[in-house]
């Protein structure tokens, strides 16, 4: 039974993938193939499959949220390590959920709404503050990065590029040459490197897709 399931999963994944790929490839500019394509309605079928994927992903997110709550609930019941934090998480989730439901039901009619207060004044504030603390960590990390056992040319190049990128962003007339250097740095080597990275990403994505279509990569099954 397990073997049948694995085979069936692979058949479904590969079949749907090929149909979707065909539908995406089929466009309005295929010329003589459009007749066949329209007749097969492959493109519509691909669109339907995409809609199904969107719905499935949404349900998956919901399942993930439920699973996460259950995990933390289990941790609280078992008094496992960090169960206090799990309790806080569960309480916050329940509170936000209840507030949203009550607002939608018209029970809570405050202005601004409670959910928005929780979002803006709690979540956004906390996450922004944590992101701001990253500044100090990055600065100290940059200072330590220059501390190397062996001073090499690569370290010197890295430090020089770092200083140019930062100092060139200062709107000081005295640092106008650095601003120009920074502009060149971003336009030429950084852009070239980014293009290379993007090419690599595209090729890797292509290979990954082909692997799934030919059944070599079956990460969708256990």
């Amino acid at each position, binding site marked *: 039974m397990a073997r049948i399931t694995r085979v069936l999963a692979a058949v479904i994944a590969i079949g749907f993938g090929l149909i979707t790929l065909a539908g995406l490839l089929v466009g309005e500019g295929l010329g003589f193939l459009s007749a066949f394509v329209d007749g097969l309605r492959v493109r519509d079928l691909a669109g339907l499959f995409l809609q199904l994927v969107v719905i499935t992903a949404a349900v998956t997110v919901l399942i993930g949220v439920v699973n996460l709550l259950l995990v933390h609930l289990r941790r609280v019941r078992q008094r496992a390590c960090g169960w206090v934090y799990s309790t806080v998480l569960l309480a916050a989730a329940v509170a936000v959920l209840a507030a949203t439901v009550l607002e939608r039901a018209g029970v809570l009619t405050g202005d601004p709404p409670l959910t928005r207060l929780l979002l803006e004044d709690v979540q*956004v504030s906390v996450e922004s503050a944590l992101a701001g603390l990253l500044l100090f960590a990055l600065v100290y990390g940059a200072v330590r990065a220059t501390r190397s056992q062996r001073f090499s040319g690569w370290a010197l190049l890295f430090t020089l590029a770092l*200083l140019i990128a930062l100092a060139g962003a200062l709107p000081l007339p005295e640092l106008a040459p650095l601003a120009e250097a920074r502009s060149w740095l971003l336009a030429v080597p950084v852009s070239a490197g980014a293009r290379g990275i993007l090419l690599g990403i595209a090729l890797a994505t292509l290979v990954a897709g082909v692997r799934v279509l030919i059944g070599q990569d079956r990460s969708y099954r256990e």
Partner: protein
Amino acid sequence: MSDDKNTDDFSWLRGSGDDSQDDWPEQDDTPPGWDQPDDNQPDLLGDRLGFTGDLAWRGGEADAEPPAGLASGSGLTGQLPWMRRYTPEDDPNEEKPGDDDLAWLRGTEDDLLAGRVEPPAPSESEPEAGTQVSPRPHVSLPSWLEDDEDVGAAEAFPAGAVPDEPEVVWEPSVAAEPPDAGLPDWLLDEEEPAQAVPPTEVPLLDDTGALSQEWLKTGELLRDTVESDITFDQWLAQQAEAERVPDIEEHLPEFGLGEAEPLALDPAVVESGDLPDWFLGLDELDTSAAPDWFTGEARLPAEPAPLQPPAELESAGLDEGFFDTGDLPEWFAQDAPAAAPGWLEDLEGASGADLPEPDLADLGFIDEAGTAAPAASDDIDSLLAGLGAGEVILPAGASADDDLDFDALLDEPDLEDFPDLPPPDEPRLPSEAPDWLTEMGATVGGVSAAALVRQREDRPLAELPDRLRKLRARGEAVLAQQPAADPGPLAELLPGVEEVLPAAPTAPAAPSLAAGLLLTPDQRRRADLLRALAGAEAAEPEEALAPVETGFLEDEDDLFEAVYEGAPAEQAVEAPAPAAAGRRARLKPARLLIALLVAAAVILPFFVPPLRIGELPPAEFAAGSGARVVFDTLNSLRPGDLVLVGVEYGPTAAGELDSLTGVLLRHILLRRARPVVVGTNPVGVLRTDGILRDLGCADSPFLVELGRSTPLRPNDDYYVVRYLPAAVVGLRALAQNAAALVATDLRGQLTGLADVTLADFAAVALVGERAEDVRGWAEQVAPLTAAPLLVATGFSAAPLLEPYVGPAFAGLLVGFPDAVTYASLLASPDVRLPAPELELTEEPEVSAPEATEEPTPEPIFTPTAAPTFTPTPALPSAVIFSTQSVNVRQGPGTEFAVITTAEPGAEVLVLAQSGDGLWSQIRLASGVEGWVSSSLLRLRPGEGVPATPTPAPTDTPAATATPPPATNTPPPTATAPPTDTPAPTSTVTPTATAPAVVTTPPAAATPQPPQVTAVVVASQGVNVRSGPGTGFQPIGSLPPGAQVEVIGRSGDAGWIQVRLADGREGWISAPLLQINAPQGSSRAPDEIVVVMADADIGSLLRQDAPPPAPAVPYAEERWYGMNLGLLVIVLVILLGAVLNTARGILRRRR
């Protein structure tokens, strides 16, 4: 072989005459004749085959007659039947019997003797091979071997005791000598005096087929019957040598021999393996009459490579009759002879002390110098003794007198006894055993002795690697330092018992897997040694024995104490000190200092103006730049256009991207377009919904900019559609089927965009945090729409998105500076679309205001106490726009009771609208009138909402509506607009509304706004700029003292907007002007209101009206804070790099 005698002394050796050579011949009891003295025999020394006992040349005994029956003569003349059993048929590998079958007796056929001893010349007495010889007569013992007092040999060997020699017949390969040929006379019978037989070819076998005596006498080598390289004797000699065990006599020196004279032998003469002279006692013998074979004069056919024994060693050969049992001397017999042979008497009194000390160097086989060459010798003993000469190394301390104890030598090879060997420190691989030991071939238990010696030798210390050498030294040091293990009291009572009995269970101090192992004291010592070598803290033996204090081991602990008296008492195992909970992290000053510096640099510019360094962002984007493209693209929007806005960032990037989102939305709204917000990040979508609500709320200053009095309505003015799951797949789905995804909003309400496709969007604006999200939009959405894709992102993702600018992105905004610049551009007058033309009704109570070329501002409508309502001829119709039934209330508010409900899509007539525009009075088809929320109504195109009457309409005098001033100028007081825009304007919604009746102004004329003027107080001319900042280009200048009209000010009141004489408007820095008091009439006692033509957009600029909120809050402060913080960060990194580089250089120099 005596050639004088024809007697067959070896008749006992002959076979029974059977031709078969497998049968052993029946021994003849006749004693050999060689043992009979024969004075007539010549004194022959040499390699004769044995001796027959007839040693007449010895003298003194010459008269002794051999006993009867004993053949006298030269010795062996008979056959050697025992040799016949070696036939080619029996052993294929066997060599054919040579001519001289008795060569081994002489030692001539031995391989070792090859070359040293010449094979004996064929003797006439030796029969030819295969020649049948006649049996020899019985030989009696020689007289010299007899003792007068003893029993005569005849009695010892009575006639007939020795059976007659059988006759053996074989055919010799060569002519054998006559049987008696070569035999010494004294070995022959006296009756048969030796006759000089000329050397002739004697047949090997006699007529009977036995070995011919004559041939034997010749001493000729028995030749092989088949062709071979070696003779049979040689082969036998090889076999014998291979299997023999060297005799001790080979290593013993020759005593009393002195240096013997080399034998003057013919090369063809066989130098048989003669017995040493000392053994034979021949040193005093008169060998003048000795037979040839005895003296070594017998001639034998030349054989290749005879062995040369040491010259000093001489030994008598064994004659043919040597093994003739009939003639065996008494000393040769097993039984002790009755009388010792006379020749031995010479040696009886001899002792080792009488014998001269041998010279080891003369032995030949002992080479002290290692290069002594063996002297040639023609006897076997000297030959054997000379084996391995120059290769044998004996211990220096050993002497030849000492018996070599081979076992002791194998057990403990003492290298000190080998001074010639290289010292142990020198590398000597592999360790060598003495060569003589190797050549001995001795084995011990199947293992070579030499191998044992090599194995038992320790590996030299110099060969060990450094690590092992150090470990070895450390081990020795640890052993030396390690105190002797306390045996304990038990060992005193019973010594050695601890080694036998197992020790008590050991409980190590620290729990480990090995807890409870039983270790003997020796094992404990070894374990401690290992721990010491490994660097681990070796526990003291006492501590190791300390038991763990647990309840389970209580009994064992008591037992431990009882048994081992004096052992350490229970030692409580102290639990390791618990680690201090929450160990305080050591504060690092460097990190703290850096954090404080950066924080101060970012915060202080907010409060300390002198720390505000750097220039503000430019007021405009560079021409042709990506940012400029974004602005121009959005600025080209037309009212009502749909703009797809993608929000792909979360709270972490809110600080940087919220400003960009705000300016984009503002621009879109200012252009009267409708943003449709979607995103794959649910938090981002929620936040954008909040931003829009803030912008469009009733108290929002943005409404002023918009020229609205009513807040923005969701699903009307903007659409916050949904969160798109599945990331890139969701985008693809949106691109392919937008209508399905934008039909409902975030709360499930219908958006009314059911028929919208991607092509219906005028532009696509994206605000993304990560490059991946932005790339997804560029790859999935942009290709399927003709609308330009405008991207706003942060500094981190900007470099990775640069390649997309152009092919995929129409424009790109990066970070906070672009947001500030964008906000400054939003203040330009051409950004806002003009308000729709006011459709003013020709009502007497309403008079159109004096219009100017400028768009009219948004008047504020203030309903009077008793407004009147003048219905229009045609009421506008609307449709209930909702997904569910709508409550129809009694009044414009939720506090009013519900009258009825209206179904979705129901057509109603709009009767009026409340003052704030949030509620509308409708009339249902049933005729029921009530109030519903304005957001739930959709007016028909071209319809207008009538004025909003009050719930209690009363007759009022005709109200006159005071149109709002046509100019977009603020009130006479210098009330700056809330935004720092140069021209605060207000727009009018396209939907025209009926003019509203406002309060009745006093009878006085329309009040004129007071004019505010200012005077330039600078000492020199001042620039009039196009905007409120030094970054704006100057458009003119004013001399000191010039008076200008003030028309506005910036948000921070640092810049004043003025109107020049030529009508141009510009900005001057506030400190450079002195604002005069407003001139003109004072403020009217009544409130100045403006009748707004459009109730929806009514907004009158008032003196105390709050300034509109800036597009980017605290833009300048934040900008200065960013600059100073960035500068401090650069300095910190630079300083750290310099210090670390210097530290690295100093460390390297060290």
